[in-house]
């Protein structure tokens, strides 16, 4: 039986006909909470994967009707184009402040921010830390690719030591630019944080781990426990000057030495925290 014969009527987030057939089922499709719009990201950029995971989560928790997403400035500045939920475009770095107000004015809303490393860990660090310290009931999806992608590949607060960028052409030097900032390490001391985890987007297995972490970070908000944040170690194939596949391997081989993945804080299911020990906070700044 051909796909064409099977495609009849089942709703999907894209405008192609879906399939319904007695003996065929669709096991994976674009989430209904995503729009059909073609994403503007470069080939192989993991933003698209993380967008899909966000869409899946909104679908899975049935949150679309009362979700307000807050988008950043950076590569994902158009994220609101790709989700079906209400959305606010914040100024650079201020998404946690915007989200704070949206949530505080009506706690029945599900409020998430989607931010990059320049947005969250550089210009918006104050808003990030204070939202976390206050234990705002918001969920932050933090995409860390260690570079300013949209503006042309400048050094980010999370660029690795030795990493060549357009503003560190000989490689990042700790003596003059400091060490990369580990956001999870930094926030893990704050009691307002209910869930904090870092995951590399480098393989199907890790993407599935990301899903598990995202569920917890969302539950941190829905169960009124505090702020939830998932840091995605993400690729920037174009600005890293690597193929998409090499960029994913670079995460596994190199990036995780500076940014060890794992669950840093879990006050959602405290039992899990013991079964998933917090990774060493040793901030090695390993060679790129």
């Amino acid at each position, binding site marked *: 039986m051909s796909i064409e014969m099977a495609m009849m009527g089942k709703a999907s987030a894209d405008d192609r006909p879906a399939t319904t057939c007695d003996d065929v089922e669709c096991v994976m499709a674009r989430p209904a909470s995503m729009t059909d719009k073609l994403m503007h990201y470069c080939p192989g950029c993991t933003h698209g994967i993380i967008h899909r995971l966000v869409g899946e989560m909104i679908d899975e928790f049935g949150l679309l009707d009362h979700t307000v997403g807050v988008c950043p400035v950076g590569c994902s500045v158009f994220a609101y184009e790709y989700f079906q939920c209400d959305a606010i475009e914040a100024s650079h770095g*201020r998404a946690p402040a915007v989200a704070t107000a949206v949530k505080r004015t009506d706690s029945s809303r599900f409020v998430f921010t989607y931010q990059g490393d320049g947005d969250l860990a550089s210009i918006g660090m104050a*808003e990030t830390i204070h939202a976390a310290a206050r234990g705002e009931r918001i969920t932050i999806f933090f995409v860390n690719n260690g570079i300013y992608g949209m503006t042309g590949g400048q050094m980010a607060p999370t660029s690795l030591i030795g990493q060549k960028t357009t503003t560190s052409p000989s490689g990042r030097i700790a003596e003059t630019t400091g060490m990369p900032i580990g956001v999870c390490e930094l926030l893990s001391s704050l009691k307002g944080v209910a869930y904090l985890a870092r995951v590399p987007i480098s393989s199907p297995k890790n993407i599935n781990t990301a899903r598990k972490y995202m569920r917890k970070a969302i539950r941190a908000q829905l169960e009124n426990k505090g702020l939830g944040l998932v840091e995605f170690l993400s690729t920037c194939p174009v600005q890293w000057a690597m193929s998409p596949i090499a960029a994913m391997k670079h995460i596994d081989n190199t990036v995780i030495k500076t940014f060890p993945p794992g669950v840093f804080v879990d006050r959602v299911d405290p039992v899990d925290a013991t079964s998933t020990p917090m990774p060493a906070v040793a901030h090695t700044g390993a060679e790129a």
Partner: protein
Amino acid sequence: MSATLEHPGAKNVAAESEPRGTEQVAGTKRLVKGNEALALGAVHGGLEAFFGYPITPQNEIPEILSGLLPSLGRVFLQAESEVASINMVYGASAAGHRTMTSSSSPGISLMMEGLSYIAGARLPCVIINVMRGGPGLGNIAPSQADYFQACKGGGHGDFHSLVLAPWNVQEMFELPALAFDLADRYRTPVFILADAVLGSMLEPAVVPDQIPPLRKVSKEWATVGRGRRAVKNVVNSLYLDPEVLSAHNETLQSTYREARREIRYDTRFTDDAEILLVAFGIAARVGLSAVRLLRKQGMRIGLLRPITLFPFPSDAIKHLAKQVRQTFVFELNSGQMVEDVRLAVNGISPVDFYGRMGGVLPGPEELAEQIRSRIGRGDSL
């Protein structure tokens, strides 16, 4: 009609925008501090969420609201900075709530980026600036040096906030409610421009005994969560296509033109005036005393006090400029509003300026002497 609009000269006050809640409501006349009046006025005007950061000389506003708003089930949050405050205002406004921040000059400077986004995204909100001396850290004395910042946009891009300037504690109570109404009607930020003296002065004012219940204003554009709406809402100021951004800017500009129907001003002794004094806020209080002094000495002088600094009462000033021999502008700055007065007068008659900077508030005698000595001297330009 606003309580201070005693003179029929204020005839172009738009009736539809009255601050509500002061008429037909039981109130008590008592001594009220200016900053307290702003805080209470905002709550009576339907303030749902306040975000701010401490700075002198406006701290009574967050102090009062920190107790009052939570007791009403509304939101008070002391933010980590003015930058966060204005972006929280952005969020609360995007989510459809009446929201406000208050600060003083340096803090307002920090808010300018966020204000531009608010204007660009067409979000209603109220911003109180209890102005202090500048530039830089300056001092905490009364100043009007932020006129340009408030009236000419302040942040990047072609935008304006509507700007209201109270001159007594009663107006400090009434203007926040008007500001919320105007903000919602035109989807713009609205400034209330006060100063260190107005914020700190105790004066008799009528404040209603009961806080009215929240009256929810319907905002079909708000990002409240999609619910059963057929389309999602997006609050945004990003328009990459130049033609689209151009059209968006045209919308903003037409909004500012429409808002000219909200122009408010107060005139005193202008019917037979040969000399016109233009001043706003606390300077107009000094100005009115100086006018009375000079009237006793036989000078036919009148006062025009803009209440809306943007939109500016250009037509009223132009009209009076045809009647008088000379116009004086008095401000607590180096001469900012005087530029708008000159644009309004447009050479019909001379315009002269007197100002004090750095937080110095001259008395009526000093101002009267300045006016007396400058008569006939012509335009100061």
